[in-house]
Protein backbone atom coordinates (compact mmCIF):
# COMPACT_ATOMS: atom_id res chain seq x y z
CA UNK A 1 0.00 0.00 0.00
CA UNK A 2 0.88 3.65 -0.29
CA UNK A 3 0.90 4.18 3.44
CA UNK A 4 3.59 3.07 5.83
CA UNK A 5 2.79 1.00 8.89
CA UNK A 6 3.11 4.08 11.05
CA UNK A 7 0.75 6.10 8.90
CA UNK A 8 -1.89 3.35 9.04
CA UNK A 9 -1.60 3.38 12.79
CA UNK A 10 -2.07 7.15 12.83
CA UNK A 11 -5.13 6.91 10.59
CA UNK A 12 -6.79 4.27 12.76
CA UNK A 13 -5.95 6.19 15.92
CA UNK A 14 -7.47 9.36 14.48
CA UNK A 15 -10.67 7.53 13.55
CA UNK A 16 -10.84 5.92 16.97
CA UNK A 17 -10.40 9.24 18.80
CA UNK A 18 -12.90 11.13 16.62
CA UNK A 19 -15.38 8.26 16.76
CA UNK A 20 -15.23 7.97 20.54
CA UNK A 21 -15.48 11.74 20.93
CA UNK A 22 -18.65 11.91 18.83
CA UNK A 23 -20.19 8.75 20.27
CA UNK A 24 -19.95 10.01 23.84
CA UNK A 25 -20.77 13.65 23.23
CA UNK A 26 -23.71 13.09 20.85
CA UNK A 27 -26.32 12.21 23.52
CA UNK A 28 -25.24 15.21 25.61
CA UNK A 29 -25.22 17.36 22.49
CA UNK A 30 -28.76 16.37 21.52
CA UNK A 31 -29.96 17.04 25.05
CA UNK A 32 -28.23 20.45 25.16
CA UNK A 33 -29.67 21.33 21.74
CA UNK A 34 -33.15 20.35 22.89
CA UNK A 35 -32.85 22.41 26.06
CA UNK A 36 -31.69 25.44 24.04
CA UNK A 37 -34.41 25.00 21.43
CA UNK A 38 -37.39 24.17 23.61
CA UNK A 39 -36.89 25.21 27.22
CA UNK A 40 -37.16 28.61 28.84
CA UNK A 41 -35.54 29.10 32.20
CA UNK A 42 -33.61 31.65 34.20
CA UNK A 43 -29.95 31.70 33.18
CA UNK A 44 -30.51 30.17 29.76
CA UNK A 45 -28.32 32.78 28.08
CA UNK A 46 -25.47 31.84 30.40
CA UNK A 47 -25.93 28.19 29.47
CA UNK A 48 -25.96 29.21 25.81
CA UNK A 49 -22.67 31.11 26.22
CA UNK A 50 -20.98 28.20 28.00
CA UNK A 51 -22.03 25.76 25.25
CA UNK A 52 -20.66 28.08 22.56
CA UNK A 53 -17.48 29.08 24.38
CA UNK A 54 -15.24 26.41 22.78
CA UNK A 55 -16.15 27.85 19.37
CA UNK A 56 -14.56 31.21 20.15
CA UNK A 57 -11.79 30.31 22.62
CA UNK A 58 -8.34 29.56 21.20
CA UNK A 59 -7.85 25.76 21.24
CA UNK A 60 -4.65 26.17 23.23
CA UNK A 61 -6.63 27.89 25.99
CA UNK A 62 -9.08 24.99 26.00
CA UNK A 63 -6.21 22.51 26.16
CA UNK A 64 -4.71 24.39 29.09
CA UNK A 65 -8.06 24.52 30.89
CA UNK A 66 -8.51 20.79 30.35
CA UNK A 67 -4.99 20.15 31.62
CA UNK A 68 -5.65 22.08 34.81
CA UNK A 69 -9.08 20.53 35.49
CA UNK A 70 -9.05 17.07 33.92
CA UNK A 71 -5.35 16.18 34.25
CA UNK A 72 -4.34 13.78 37.01
CA UNK A 73 -3.62 16.75 39.29
CA UNK A 74 -6.68 18.72 38.18
CA UNK A 75 -9.68 19.10 40.46
CA UNK A 76 -12.00 16.85 38.48
CA UNK A 77 -9.26 14.68 37.00
CA UNK A 78 -7.83 13.75 40.39
CA UNK A 79 -11.24 12.79 41.69
CA UNK A 80 -12.03 10.70 38.59
CA UNK A 81 -8.64 8.95 38.82
CA UNK A 82 -8.85 8.19 42.53
CA UNK A 83 -12.50 7.17 42.80
CA UNK A 84 -13.59 6.00 39.38
CA UNK A 85 -10.27 4.90 37.98
CA UNK A 86 -10.57 6.91 34.77
CA UNK A 87 -7.62 8.96 33.60
CA UNK A 88 -7.48 11.44 30.75
CA UNK A 89 -3.88 12.49 31.00
CA UNK A 90 -1.58 11.78 28.06
CA UNK A 91 -3.66 8.99 26.60
CA UNK A 92 -6.06 8.62 23.67
CA UNK A 93 -9.10 9.08 25.92
CA UNK A 94 -7.75 12.53 26.75
CA UNK A 95 -7.36 13.29 23.04
CA UNK A 96 -10.98 12.21 22.52
CA UNK A 97 -12.10 14.48 25.37
CA UNK A 98 -10.23 17.45 23.89
CA UNK A 99 -11.74 16.80 20.44
CA UNK A 100 -15.22 16.37 21.90
CA UNK A 101 -15.04 19.69 23.75
CA UNK A 102 -13.85 21.55 20.65
CA UNK A 103 -16.47 19.93 18.37
CA UNK A 104 -19.37 20.22 20.85
CA UNK A 105 -20.70 23.69 19.91
CA UNK A 106 -20.65 22.90 16.19
CA UNK A 107 -22.67 19.76 16.80
CA UNK A 108 -25.14 21.49 19.12
CA UNK A 109 -25.71 24.40 16.72
CA UNK A 110 -26.67 22.16 13.87
CA UNK A 111 -28.98 19.96 15.97
CA UNK A 112 -30.56 22.96 17.65
CA UNK A 113 -31.46 24.55 14.32
CA UNK A 114 -33.06 21.29 13.22
CA UNK A 115 -35.13 21.00 16.41
CA UNK A 116 -36.21 24.65 16.15
CA UNK A 117 -37.46 24.05 12.63
CA UNK A 118 -39.88 21.32 13.77
CA UNK A 119 -43.50 22.48 14.00
CA UNK A 120 -44.08 22.55 17.78
CA UNK A 121 -47.75 21.77 17.14
CA UNK A 122 -46.71 18.25 16.11
CA UNK A 123 -45.17 17.81 19.56
CA UNK A 124 -48.28 19.28 21.16
CA UNK A 125 -50.67 17.00 19.30
CA UNK A 126 -48.54 14.02 20.33
CA UNK A 127 -49.01 15.00 23.95
CA UNK A 128 -52.79 15.23 23.56
CA UNK A 129 -52.57 11.69 22.14
CA UNK A 130 -51.19 10.51 25.46
CA UNK A 131 -47.43 10.66 24.88
CA UNK A 132 -45.20 11.82 27.74
CA UNK A 133 -42.56 14.49 27.07
CA UNK A 134 -39.94 11.76 26.84
CA UNK A 135 -41.94 9.71 24.31
CA UNK A 136 -42.56 12.84 22.23
CA UNK A 137 -38.82 13.51 22.27
CA UNK A 138 -37.97 9.97 21.11
CA UNK A 139 -40.76 9.44 18.57
CA UNK A 140 -41.26 12.94 17.14
CA UNK A 141 -38.42 15.33 17.92
CA UNK A 142 -35.46 13.02 17.24
CA UNK A 143 -36.73 11.48 13.95
CA UNK A 144 -37.84 14.84 12.56
CA UNK A 145 -34.49 16.45 13.32
CA UNK A 146 -32.56 13.50 11.88
CA UNK A 147 -30.99 15.54 9.07
CA UNK A 148 -29.72 18.14 11.52
CA UNK A 149 -28.35 15.50 13.87
CA UNK A 150 -26.55 13.89 10.94
CA UNK A 151 -25.09 17.23 9.89
CA UNK A 152 -24.00 17.81 13.47
CA UNK A 153 -22.28 14.43 13.57
CA UNK A 154 -20.44 15.04 10.30
CA UNK A 155 -19.37 18.57 11.22
CA UNK A 156 -18.31 17.40 14.66
CA UNK A 157 -16.45 14.38 13.29
CA UNK A 158 -14.61 16.53 10.77
CA UNK A 159 -13.71 19.04 13.47
CA UNK A 160 -12.42 16.19 15.68
CA UNK A 161 -10.23 14.85 12.87
CA UNK A 162 -8.74 18.32 12.46
CA UNK A 163 -8.21 19.03 16.14
CA UNK A 164 -4.69 20.19 16.92
CA UNK A 165 -4.25 22.92 19.52
CA UNK A 166 -6.28 21.58 22.42
CA UNK A 167 -4.99 18.04 21.87
CA UNK A 168 -1.28 18.87 21.79
CA UNK A 169 -1.65 21.14 24.85
CA UNK A 170 -3.70 18.69 26.91
CA UNK A 171 -2.26 15.28 26.04
CA UNK A 172 0.93 16.14 24.14
CA UNK A 173 2.11 14.43 20.94
CA UNK A 174 2.77 10.78 21.75
CA UNK A 175 3.25 8.28 18.95
CA UNK A 176 0.57 5.57 19.03
CA UNK A 177 -1.36 7.25 21.83
CA UNK A 178 -2.27 10.86 21.02
CA UNK A 179 -0.56 11.53 17.69
CA UNK A 180 -3.52 12.03 15.36
CA UNK A 181 -3.26 12.98 11.66
CA UNK A 182 -2.70 16.73 12.14
CA UNK A 183 -0.15 16.06 14.88
CA UNK A 184 1.62 13.49 12.71
CA UNK A 185 1.74 16.00 9.83
CA UNK A 186 3.19 18.61 12.13
CA UNK A 187 5.77 16.10 13.38
CA UNK A 188 6.74 15.09 9.83
CA UNK A 189 7.33 18.71 8.92
CA UNK A 190 9.70 19.07 11.89
CA UNK A 191 12.09 16.37 10.70
CA UNK A 192 14.37 16.43 7.61
CA UNK A 193 12.96 14.52 4.59
CA UNK A 194 9.55 14.40 6.22
CA UNK A 195 7.79 16.30 3.45
CA UNK A 196 6.73 13.26 1.44
CA UNK A 197 5.11 11.76 4.50
CA UNK A 198 3.41 15.06 5.31
CA UNK A 199 2.00 15.19 1.77
CA UNK A 200 0.61 11.65 2.06
CA UNK A 201 -1.04 12.51 5.38
CA UNK A 202 -2.41 15.67 3.84
CA UNK A 203 -4.03 13.75 0.96
CA UNK A 204 -5.35 11.22 3.48
CA UNK A 205 -6.99 14.00 5.50
CA UNK A 206 -8.66 15.42 2.42
CA UNK A 207 -9.93 11.96 1.42
CA UNK A 208 -11.35 11.37 4.91
CA UNK A 209 -13.24 14.64 4.86
CA UNK A 210 -14.66 13.90 1.43
CA UNK A 211 -15.78 10.43 2.50
CA UNK A 212 -17.49 11.85 5.60
CA UNK A 213 -19.35 14.42 3.49
CA UNK A 214 -20.31 11.78 0.95
CA UNK A 215 -21.70 9.39 3.56
CA UNK A 216 -23.74 12.13 5.21
CA UNK A 217 -25.15 13.22 1.85
CA UNK A 218 -26.14 9.60 1.10
CA UNK A 219 -27.85 9.13 4.47
CA UNK A 220 -29.60 12.45 4.10
CA UNK A 221 -30.99 11.52 0.69
CA UNK A 222 -32.12 8.16 1.98
CA UNK A 223 -33.94 9.86 4.83
CA UNK A 224 -35.62 12.40 2.53
CA UNK A 225 -36.66 9.64 0.15
CA UNK A 226 -38.22 7.70 3.01
CA UNK A 227 -40.18 10.76 4.09
CA UNK A 228 -41.39 11.52 0.58
CA UNK A 229 -42.63 8.01 -0.16
Amino acid at each position, binding site marked *: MLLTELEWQTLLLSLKIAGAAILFSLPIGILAAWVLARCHFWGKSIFDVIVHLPLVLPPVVLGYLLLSTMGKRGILGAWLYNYVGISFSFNWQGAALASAVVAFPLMVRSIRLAIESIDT*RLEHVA*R*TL*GASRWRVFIT*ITIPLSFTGILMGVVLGFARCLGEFGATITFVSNIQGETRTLPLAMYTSLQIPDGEASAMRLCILSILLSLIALFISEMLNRLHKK*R*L*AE
Partner: protein
Amino acid sequence: MLTIDITKKLSSFYFKFNQSIECQGITAILGVSGSGKSTLINLINGLIRPDSGKILINGTTLIDCEKNIFIPPEQRHIGTVFQDALLFPHYKVVNNLLYGCHGSIQRNRLTDIIDLLNIGHLLNRYPTKLSGGERQRVAIGRALLTNPRLLLMDEPLSALDMPRKKELLAYIKNLAKEFSIPVIYVTHNINEVKQIADRVAILEQGQLYAYGDRDEILQNSYLQEWL
Protein backbone atom coordinates in the same frame (compact mmCIF):
# COMPACT_ATOMS: atom_id res chain seq x y z
CA MET B 1 -70.44 17.67 32.78
CA LEU B 2 -67.45 19.85 31.92
CA THR B 3 -67.13 22.57 34.54
CA ILE B 4 -64.92 25.46 33.55
CA ASP B 5 -64.13 28.47 35.70
CA ILE B 6 -60.87 30.05 34.61
CA THR B 7 -59.07 33.27 33.80
CA LYS B 8 -56.01 33.77 31.64
CA LYS B 9 -54.28 36.97 30.67
CA LEU B 10 -53.50 37.06 26.97
CA SER B 11 -51.57 39.68 25.03
CA SER B 12 -54.62 41.42 23.59
CA PHE B 13 -57.33 40.72 26.15
CA TYR B 14 -58.30 39.00 29.35
CA PHE B 15 -59.80 35.54 28.89
CA LYS B 16 -62.52 34.69 31.37
CA PHE B 17 -64.83 31.70 31.12
CA ASN B 18 -67.24 30.41 33.72
CA GLN B 19 -69.77 27.86 32.54
CA SER B 20 -70.66 24.20 32.88
CA ILE B 21 -71.06 22.43 29.58
CA GLU B 22 -73.01 19.23 29.22
CA CYS B 23 -70.82 16.28 28.15
CA GLN B 24 -73.20 14.93 25.58
CA GLY B 25 -73.70 15.44 21.87
CA ILE B 26 -72.03 18.30 20.05
CA THR B 27 -71.43 21.67 21.67
CA ALA B 28 -70.35 24.38 19.28
CA ILE B 29 -68.14 27.25 20.40
CA LEU B 30 -68.87 30.12 18.06
CA GLY B 31 -66.87 33.32 17.78
CA VAL B 32 -64.98 35.57 15.40
CA SER B 33 -61.24 35.19 14.92
CA GLY B 34 -59.32 36.19 18.02
CA SER B 35 -62.26 35.79 20.38
CA GLY B 36 -60.38 33.16 22.40
CA LYS B 37 -61.84 29.97 20.94
CA SER B 38 -58.51 28.19 20.49
CA THR B 39 -57.41 29.42 23.90
CA LEU B 40 -60.40 27.69 25.44
CA ILE B 41 -59.60 24.45 23.59
CA ASN B 42 -55.96 24.50 24.71
CA LEU B 43 -56.95 25.26 28.28
CA ILE B 44 -59.19 22.19 28.29
CA ASN B 45 -56.63 19.83 26.74
CA GLY B 46 -53.85 21.17 28.97
CA LEU B 47 -51.52 22.68 26.39
CA ILE B 48 -51.80 26.04 28.16
CA ARG B 49 -52.26 26.75 31.84
CA PRO B 50 -54.79 29.23 33.18
CA ASP B 51 -53.72 31.99 35.59
CA SER B 52 -56.41 31.03 38.05
CA GLY B 53 -59.48 28.83 38.42
CA LYS B 54 -60.26 25.21 37.75
CA ILE B 55 -61.58 22.74 35.20
CA LEU B 56 -63.41 19.54 36.12
CA ILE B 57 -64.70 16.83 33.84
CA ASN B 58 -67.43 14.57 35.24
CA GLY B 59 -66.23 15.37 38.74
CA THR B 60 -62.53 14.70 38.03
CA THR B 61 -60.21 17.66 38.43
CA LEU B 62 -58.08 18.48 35.37
CA ILE B 63 -56.63 21.63 36.83
CA ASP B 64 -57.14 23.50 40.05
CA CYS B 65 -54.83 26.47 40.53
CA GLU B 66 -55.77 26.92 44.18
CA LYS B 67 -55.02 23.31 45.11
CA ASN B 68 -52.00 23.27 42.80
CA ILE B 69 -53.32 20.35 40.76
CA PHE B 70 -52.31 20.15 37.11
CA ILE B 71 -52.99 17.00 35.11
CA PRO B 72 -50.62 17.09 32.08
CA PRO B 73 -52.19 16.81 28.59
CA GLU B 74 -51.09 13.19 28.12
CA GLN B 75 -53.06 12.08 31.18
CA ARG B 76 -56.29 13.92 30.46
CA HIS B 77 -57.82 11.48 27.96
CA ILE B 78 -59.10 14.36 25.90
CA GLY B 79 -58.69 14.12 22.14
CA THR B 80 -58.00 17.21 20.07
CA VAL B 81 -58.33 17.70 16.32
CA PHE B 82 -56.69 20.91 15.16
CA GLN B 83 -57.29 23.13 12.14
CA ASP B 84 -54.41 21.47 10.32
CA ALA B 85 -54.42 17.71 10.56
CA LEU B 86 -50.88 17.71 12.02
CA LEU B 87 -50.22 14.09 11.05
CA PHE B 88 -46.71 12.89 11.85
CA PRO B 89 -44.94 13.08 8.48
CA HIS B 90 -42.51 10.23 9.25
CA TYR B 91 -45.26 7.72 10.09
CA LYS B 92 -47.55 5.92 7.71
CA VAL B 93 -51.28 6.50 8.15
CA VAL B 94 -51.69 3.27 10.10
CA ASN B 95 -48.93 4.23 12.53
CA ASN B 96 -50.38 7.69 12.90
CA LEU B 97 -53.69 6.06 13.83
CA LEU B 98 -52.06 3.75 16.37
CA TYR B 99 -49.82 6.42 17.94
CA GLY B 100 -52.14 7.03 20.86
CA CYS B 101 -53.18 3.41 21.45
CA HIS B 102 -51.54 1.89 24.46
CA GLY B 103 -51.02 -1.80 23.95
CA SER B 104 -54.58 -3.01 24.09
CA ILE B 105 -56.40 -1.93 20.97
CA GLN B 106 -59.89 -3.25 20.58
CA ARG B 107 -59.85 -4.71 17.10
CA ASN B 108 -63.55 -3.88 16.58
CA ARG B 109 -63.08 -0.27 17.49
CA LEU B 110 -60.18 0.07 15.07
CA THR B 111 -62.13 -1.37 12.16
CA ASP B 112 -65.25 0.58 13.15
CA ILE B 113 -63.38 3.85 13.09
CA ILE B 114 -61.58 3.01 9.85
CA ASP B 115 -64.92 2.12 8.24
CA LEU B 116 -66.77 5.13 9.58
CA LEU B 117 -64.12 7.55 8.32
CA ASN B 118 -63.55 5.55 5.13
CA ILE B 119 -59.76 5.54 5.41
CA GLY B 120 -59.09 1.81 4.94
CA HIS B 121 -57.44 2.29 1.55
CA LEU B 122 -54.99 4.89 2.93
CA LEU B 123 -53.38 2.87 5.72
CA ASN B 124 -50.04 2.25 4.03
CA ARG B 125 -49.50 5.75 2.67
CA TYR B 126 -47.47 8.58 4.11
CA PRO B 127 -49.37 11.78 5.02
CA THR B 128 -47.77 13.79 2.19
CA LYS B 129 -49.64 11.57 -0.27
CA LEU B 130 -53.08 12.38 1.15
CA SER B 131 -55.55 15.11 0.21
CA GLY B 132 -56.61 17.69 2.80
CA GLY B 133 -59.88 15.94 3.54
CA GLU B 134 -58.22 12.53 3.87
CA ARG B 135 -55.63 13.99 6.22
CA GLN B 136 -58.27 15.51 8.45
CA ARG B 137 -60.19 12.22 8.55
CA VAL B 138 -57.06 10.37 9.63
CA ALA B 139 -56.47 13.03 12.31
CA ILE B 140 -59.99 12.49 13.62
CA GLY B 141 -59.47 8.72 13.62
CA ARG B 142 -56.16 9.12 15.44
CA ALA B 143 -57.81 11.19 18.17
CA LEU B 144 -60.74 8.75 18.47
CA LEU B 145 -58.43 5.76 18.86
CA THR B 146 -57.03 7.15 22.12
CA ASN B 147 -60.49 6.42 23.52
CA PRO B 148 -61.06 9.98 24.73
CA ARG B 149 -63.78 10.97 27.17
CA LEU B 150 -64.16 14.23 25.25
CA LEU B 151 -63.23 15.21 21.71
CA LEU B 152 -62.20 18.80 21.03
CA MET B 153 -62.27 20.07 17.46
CA ASP B 154 -60.63 23.39 16.68
CA GLU B 155 -62.01 24.60 13.34
CA PRO B 156 -61.33 21.23 11.73
CA LEU B 157 -62.90 22.19 8.41
CA SER B 158 -61.52 25.65 7.83
CA ALA B 159 -58.59 24.44 5.71
CA LEU B 160 -60.87 22.44 3.37
CA ASP B 161 -62.86 23.29 0.26
CA MET B 162 -66.66 23.30 0.21
CA PRO B 163 -67.38 19.71 -0.97
CA ARG B 164 -64.87 18.32 1.57
CA LYS B 165 -66.45 20.40 4.30
CA LYS B 166 -69.88 18.92 3.66
CA GLU B 167 -68.50 15.41 3.51
CA LEU B 168 -66.50 15.73 6.73
CA LEU B 169 -69.35 17.39 8.59
CA ALA B 170 -71.44 14.29 7.97
CA TYR B 171 -68.63 12.09 9.38
CA ILE B 172 -68.38 14.24 12.51
CA LYS B 173 -72.11 14.16 13.11
CA ASN B 174 -72.05 10.39 12.76
CA LEU B 175 -69.18 9.72 15.10
CA ALA B 176 -70.64 11.74 17.95
CA LYS B 177 -73.67 9.50 17.71
CA GLU B 178 -72.05 6.14 16.97
CA PHE B 179 -69.32 6.30 19.60
CA SER B 180 -71.37 8.47 21.96
CA ILE B 181 -68.39 10.74 22.48
CA PRO B 182 -69.15 14.29 23.54
CA VAL B 183 -67.68 16.79 21.10
CA ILE B 184 -66.76 20.43 21.59
CA TYR B 185 -66.63 21.95 18.15
CA VAL B 186 -64.99 25.34 17.62
CA THR B 187 -65.95 27.32 14.54
CA HIS B 188 -66.64 30.79 13.17
CA ASN B 189 -69.07 29.40 10.61
CA ILE B 190 -72.72 29.61 11.58
CA ASN B 191 -73.82 27.14 8.89
CA GLU B 192 -71.71 24.41 10.48
CA VAL B 193 -73.38 25.20 13.80
CA LYS B 194 -76.81 24.90 12.25
CA GLN B 195 -75.99 21.53 10.81
CA ILE B 196 -74.36 19.66 13.67
CA ALA B 197 -74.58 21.44 17.02
CA ASP B 198 -76.91 20.51 19.87
CA ARG B 199 -75.78 23.43 22.00
CA VAL B 200 -73.93 26.64 21.29
CA ALA B 201 -71.65 28.90 23.29
CA ILE B 202 -70.79 32.28 21.83
CA LEU B 203 -67.41 33.78 22.70
CA GLU B 204 -66.75 37.49 22.36
CA GLN B 205 -63.44 39.16 23.30
CA GLY B 206 -62.47 36.30 25.60
CA GLN B 207 -65.80 36.32 27.43
CA LEU B 208 -68.76 34.00 27.24
CA TYR B 209 -71.54 35.99 25.58
CA ALA B 210 -74.30 33.40 25.50
CA TYR B 211 -74.80 29.67 26.08
CA GLY B 212 -77.79 27.43 25.46
CA ASP B 213 -79.60 25.11 23.08
CA ARG B 214 -78.92 25.66 19.42
CA ASP B 215 -82.34 26.87 18.36
CA GLU B 216 -82.61 29.24 21.27
CA ILE B 217 -79.15 30.74 20.63
CA LEU B 218 -79.69 31.05 16.91
CA GLN B 219 -82.55 33.43 17.68
CA ASN B 220 -80.12 35.71 19.51
CA SER B 221 -79.97 39.18 18.04
CA TYR B 222 -76.15 39.13 18.27
CA LEU B 223 -76.08 36.58 15.50
CA GLN B 224 -78.20 38.58 13.07
CA GLU B 225 -75.13 40.14 11.47
CA TRP B 226 -73.67 36.64 10.94
CA LEU B 227 -76.53 35.44 8.79
